[in-house]
């Protein structure tokens, strides 16, 4: 059965697993703190976070880093809930 792009367990691959560590950039720490705060205050939960990640277009999902996926999901879910206006973040950048 074909799952979403995130459902990769058990799929044959010849690619080695990337086990390299990297220092977290400030935006990554902030993203973690932001999503944690949204969760603790009941604005969005971890299951919504995961659903938002899974809704990424497959190519974007594959090329995105861990916290890029979190940011994509937070923006998607917060826009869905009306906390953010569509395009609000781009307009502020």
């Amino acid at each position, binding site marked *: *059965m*074909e*799952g979403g792009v995130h*459902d990769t*367990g*058990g*799929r044959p691959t010849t690619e080695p697993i990337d086990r390299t560590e990297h220092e977290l950039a400030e935006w990554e720490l902030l993203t973690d703190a932001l999503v944690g705060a949204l969760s603790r205050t009941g604005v969005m*939960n971890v*299951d*919504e976070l*995961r*659903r938002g990640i*899974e809704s990424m277009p497959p190519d974007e999902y594959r090329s995105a880093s861990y916290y890029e996926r979190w940011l994509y999901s937070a923006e998607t879910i917060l826009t869905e*809930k009306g906390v953010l206006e569509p395009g609000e973040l781009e307009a502020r950048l």
Partner: protein
Amino acid sequence: MSFEPGQRVRVSAREHRGHHRTPGYLKGRVGTVERCQGSFTNPETRAYGDSGLPKQALYLVRFENGHPVSADIYEHWLEEAE
């Protein structure tokens, strides 16, 4: 329906388009219940802003065909096998 350690179970292969935690590669596979992990809110409804209640029992299931692997599977994805 609840399951006991040692019981043989099959993971449902049903279609489910929304968010769910059942890995695709285990759908349709038969395994053995190792233990019940407790009951947890249902991510399938909680992912859409719901409370996720009632809680669903979660089982650690061991799959032996091919590379042995154990995975947590929610009760409503398990069927009695054999």
